[in-house]
């Protein structure tokens, strides 16, 4: 139970963090036309397929005592896992939200302006229009984060009662031969993901 709670907490925080910095980036990518926009978009799309072990290793080196931010002593802490997951899912958040915004008729922004909206208010109107896509992006990001094993294992260390989460515990217990426990935990993991997806779906359907 405690493990499930930690899984949700860590991945939830990571998702919030990625939305915090991903949403403004995606809004700019989706609405503004500037030089280098395609390069930037391509970069985020390419990062969708980054091998998590490689990312985990890089983060490990950053967080370790000899690394550039080693003085923060983040390695093997929930914070490290949150940051790791947040970086991992940022490309998902940014790419999905960008395409959600791009799918909205550009006339919506002009429309908002003709009704008296400022530049910022008009951008918010477009964002509101793309809300279903944005919610989908956030759900996908969270699901990816909570399913992550490699990074959390490398920077979290699977310390019982401190950094162990569902995925790391399942891996450990399976190695130890505790198959029943592993199956139970895997079912919990699946439940969390499906309950979230279904409820998001239902809320969206009620709105339209």
């Amino acid at each position, binding site marked *: 139970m405690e493990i499930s709670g930690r899984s949700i907490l860590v991945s939830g925080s990571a998702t919030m963090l990625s939305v915090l910095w991903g949403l403004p980036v995606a809004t700019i990518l989706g609405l503004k036309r500037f030089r280098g926009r395609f390069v930037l978009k391509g970069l985020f799309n390419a990062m969708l397929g980054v091998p998590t072990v490689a990312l985990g290793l890089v983060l490990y080196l950053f967080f370790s005592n000899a690394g550039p931010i080693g003085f923060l002593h983040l390695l093997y802490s929930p914070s490290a896992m949150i940051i790791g997951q947040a970086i991992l899912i940022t490309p998902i958040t940014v790419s999905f939200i960008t395409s959600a915004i791009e799918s909205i*008729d550009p*006339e*919506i922004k*002009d*429309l*908002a*302006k*003709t*009704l*008296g*909206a*400022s530049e910022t*208010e008009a951008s918010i*109107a477009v964002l*509101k*229009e793309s809300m279903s896509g944005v919610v989908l992006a956030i759900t996908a990001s969270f699901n990816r984060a909570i399913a992550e094993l490699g990074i959390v294992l490398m920077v979290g260390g699977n310390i019982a009662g401190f950094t162990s989460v569902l995925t790391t515990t399942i891996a450990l217990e399976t190695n130890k031969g505790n198959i029943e426990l592993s199956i139970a935990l895997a079912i919990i993991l699946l439940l969390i993901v499906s309950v979230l997806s279904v409820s998001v779906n239902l809320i969206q359907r009620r709105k*339209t």
Partner: protein
Amino acid sequence: MKTIIELENIIKTYGNITALDRVSLKVRKGEIFTIAGPNGSGKTTMLRIMAFIDTPTSGEVYFDGIKVSNENRGQVRAKCTMVFQKTALFNTSVYKNIAYGLKLRGFPKKEIEERVKDVLGLVKLDGYEKRLVKKLSGGEQQRVSLARALVLDAELLLLDEPTANLDPKNMSIIEETVSRVNRERKNTVVMATHNLFQAENITKRAALLLGGRIVEVGTAQEIFRTPSKHLASFARLENVFSGVSRSLKEGTSLIDVGDGVEIETALRKSGKTSVFVRPEDIILSKKPISSSARNVFKGRIVEISDLGSVVRLKVDAGKQFVVQITKRSFNEMQLNVRSEVFLTFKASSVHVI
């Protein structure tokens, strides 16, 4: 009369394409002004500049006598509003769509509710507040767009082809609403259209836009009643006939337009000529009538289109003529496709292009 918006030497280019070429125009406060022109002539670009959502490449725009610049564009924009040709709506309820502009302006909830209710009555969509816009018909959606603009009671209302692709019922609701608002609230209306018929019905002054240039400005009468080459080059002019004309002794001319049809015109002209007759200038009768009119043709109705209060008929009399009569006459005469009819029009109704 005071000028509400003035364009001075506006040039707008997109890459190599010049959408507007040295356009200057003054729109007077409280009038309905029409910008007529074919598709791609720059009407939308002109409206977007007047709505302050596009900036001209060069040239100045004055609103209420004040030059509009980057500093005051936001404030001026709040005094104008625009209805787009392609209906753009927020994917939510009718109420939220219409309330959007009022919310931005910080109106109290109660007043927003009242205003939305009133404006829905104006466009004949009473009780539609909670409906989702995506589930409305195209005509209803366009009426929501119009309501959303009208509710702001903006000084300048810009309409981009407000009735394109609409059925006659929705078209007349929109036309009536626009005329009524202009009459009662004195809002200035600038409307772009390629439908000259509509332009002439509800507008007092108009400009003719061709290839990004204003080629004519004047009263609707001047522009549409006295056809020019400019107008003929794009207008959905019906009953245009070409043929060889020969002058008659009486001072009129007879034009042989082929298929056994000869049209008499009051003008003296010989050689190759193009003429047109306005559909509403042709008298339709079931039996030949004796009158002073010089042109009488016998034909059969081949097509009937209902335009609300009027009916347009296509009549094959060797050449095809378009005739417009009122719905009432149409019903009284009990006309049908294949009915035999006579067309009568005066030689002076035949205009040379």
